[in-house]
């Protein structure tokens, strides 16, 4: 998952801190440390995962354990950080958060992480959604990642702006207006065109979110189900979606894909694709505690249900305290803590019990929307797509630039957009 860009300083400072933490984390030694000896565990997370608030409770339960946490600004920073340390063979935190987007790459070097079956994860296997558990398992059956959240998607929208334009602005009314359970991307954009025509304002901030959602909705995405064969060049569905996006670029705000704070505050766009973890991003546009901004959250996604992102926790093989680190990772991934993290930052639990625990959750920022109920509904029928090794490169460096140029009004016809993407694909991805 990607998160809004805060200040880049955070990443840089966090990067340096990681090093310091790693150095201090290696002070105590030996696997046979008795459990009451003081131990420092390091953990690296990214974005707004909502688990940082749980450390204190864990430390209270385990007085000998001190948690030194590093939070990187987004999944990309966490990926670069993890890759560099795996390549160096040293430096990984005891517990490492892994994002779904680069999980398939980590799977190829999963021996950098311990097999969580050795630490009892199998006893809790039934907690997780089957596909989530399977995602964290490699070809040899080793479980290298304990699932945290999943990313079922709904739509965040500005009910007040829609009403001001004479369009339905309540949760159900908006969902119905774009087609309800049968909403398609076409009917969604039709609504957007109407909104822009009536209000004179842009409808969305950047088209990449519609693109990513659409790709995730396909049975096979950038890769075929085998996870190695590319599935792009003759893909009429992808080409059609790119066309649709180009045709509707006129109702976009031309805002940056991430960090559209200014535009949000100025009411420059009215809709935002919201996987569970994105709720925190939208809130991040405003000061902490702000409500009544007009944002609401609807139980609808054009084109049907889809999963976007989701994180895992791995325990590094190089950890000096594998047992304690695995205990911490499994505790953080337990249904109760997943539910607690959801209440703090919004990432939706990947365990069934966790989902039950948040079933009655509401969110005051989103006009008291029943977020727990909506996400449970949005998660129905969702199965994560098989991702290939270059999935994030294709998303960020092949379609990313093209969508950016569409957003800036530099590409205005679908054919050009598609051809540019294919050119980039040929240049960037070994086929």
């Amino acid at each position, binding site marked *: 998952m990607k998160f809004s860009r805060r200040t880049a300083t955070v990443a840089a400072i966090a990067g340096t801190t990681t090093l310091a933490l790693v150095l201090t984390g290696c002070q105590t030694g030996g696997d046979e440390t008795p459990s009451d000896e003081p131990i420092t565990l390091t953990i690296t997370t990214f974005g707004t995962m909502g688990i940082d608030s749980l450390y204190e409770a864990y430390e209270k339960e385990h007085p000998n354990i001190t948690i030194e946490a590093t939070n990187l600004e987004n999944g990309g*920073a966490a*990926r670069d950080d993890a890759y560099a340390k795996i390549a160096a063979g040293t430096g990984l935190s005891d517990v490492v958060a892994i994002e779904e987007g680069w999980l398939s790459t980590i799977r190829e070097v999963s021996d950098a992480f311990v097999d969580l079956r050795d630490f009892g994860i199998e006893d809790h296997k039934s907690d997780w959604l089957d596909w989530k558990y399977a995602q964290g398992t490699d070809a040899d059956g080793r479980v290298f990642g304990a699932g945290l959240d999943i990313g079922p998607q709904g739509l965040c929208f500005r009910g007040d702006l829609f009403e001001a334009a004479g369009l339905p602005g309540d949760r159900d009314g908006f969902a119905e207006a774009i087609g309800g359970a049968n909403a398609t991307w076409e009917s969604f954009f039709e609504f957007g065109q109407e909104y822009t025509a009536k209000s004179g304002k842009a409808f969305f901030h950047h088209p990449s979110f519609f693109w990513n959602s659409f790709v995730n909705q396909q049975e096979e995405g950038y890769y075929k189900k085998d996870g190695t064969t590319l599935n792009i060049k003759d893909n009429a569905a992808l080409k059609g979606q790119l066309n649709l996006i180009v045709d509707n670029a006129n109702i976009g705000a031309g805002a940056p894909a991430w960090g559209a704070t200014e535009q949000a505050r100025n009411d420059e766009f009215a809709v935002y694709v919201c996987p569970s973890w994105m709720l925190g991003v939208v809130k991040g546009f405003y000061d902490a505690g702000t409500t009544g901004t007009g944002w609401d959250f609807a139980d609808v996604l054009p084109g049907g249900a889809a999963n976007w992102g989701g994180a895992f926790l791995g325990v590094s093989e190089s950890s000096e305290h594998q047992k304690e680190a695995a205990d911490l990772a499994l505790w953080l991934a337990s249904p109760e803590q997943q539910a607690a993290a959801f209440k703090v930052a919004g990432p939706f639990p990947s365990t069934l019990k966790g989902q039950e625990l948040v079933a009655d959750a509401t969110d005051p920022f989103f006009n008291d929307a029943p977020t727990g109920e909506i996400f449970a509904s949005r998660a129905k029928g969702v199965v994560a797509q098989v991702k290939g090794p270059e999935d994030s490169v294709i998303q960020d460096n092949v379609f990313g630039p093209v969508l950016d140029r569409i957003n800036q009004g530099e590409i205005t016809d679908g054919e050009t957009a598609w051809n540019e993407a294919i050119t980039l694909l040929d240049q960037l991805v070994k086929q």
Partner: protein
Amino acid sequence: MSTLQAGRGGGGLTFRQKLANFDYKASPYIYISPFFILFAVLGLFPIIYTVNVSLYNWDLLKGQGDFIGLGNYVTTLTDPFFWNAFGNTISIFLLSAIPQLVAATVIAAVLDQAIRASTFWRMSVLLPYIAAPVAVAVIFTQIFNQYGGPITGILEALGIEPIRWGFDVFPSHIAIATMVNWRWTGYNALILLAAMQAIPRDIYESAALDGAGRARRFWSITIPMIRPTMIFVVITATIGGLQIFTEPKLFDGQSNGGANRQFQTIVLYLYEMAFPRRDFGRAAATAWILFLIIILIGLLNYAISRTIASQDIKRNIRVPSRKTVRPNGGLK
């Protein structure tokens, strides 16, 4: 006694004397050895290791693959994105190095005059250099934010179409070069100032007596006399400028030099190769290509700055010689 005797037996020196001799000969090497040991570990080894990596198919995570000889160099040199990065680097380098050196020389010349509170001014030109590059980049990224940043605000107030600093190629280069200039101008000014301070004042005095004006003294004395320092500054600016990374990386934290690589520099290209794309072999090859480019451009700059400066120095030689002819204070 016996040990002393034995000591004498070998070459007629006592153990103490031998030790002193050894101390005399070896100590200097031992004193400077930390540098060379550190250099071997942190400098030489990575350089040699990089050559090794660049000759293989080398996945960042999976490690060494097949030997492919110069394959990585060929693919890099035929990659349009590499040349895009090369062009961006040169563009940003020129936009930063030239104004920076001109401004640094002028500032140094001003500081070289007898001005009030000179220490204060000298300290203040160094301040930007002390600021962490990350902080500089973050602040300037906000200033150049095309969506409601202060510069956009000023342009809007003046009725000028907002400039897409983060999206268009040339404006983004200007924004990045500005960060570099802001940070390095004062630093270079102080180095040049040190060189200027070393110029004997009586040369200026005699030139002034000969009727040379301020500008003439600057061009005919100051510039030629600081030539070695100028060359040093040019070379370090070249190395720094071609290795630029932090500023463009932070200018758009989400990508490696803009979604369309509008401001991807060679080091950012190298970074993209190594980390997001995990092709360590090509990253290593890129590092070596960059090394060669720096040497080439460094030599070129050296040659240019030598010729520019030496044209003046010939004229300059006459200044002291004339002085010797004239008796001290003869014109007064």
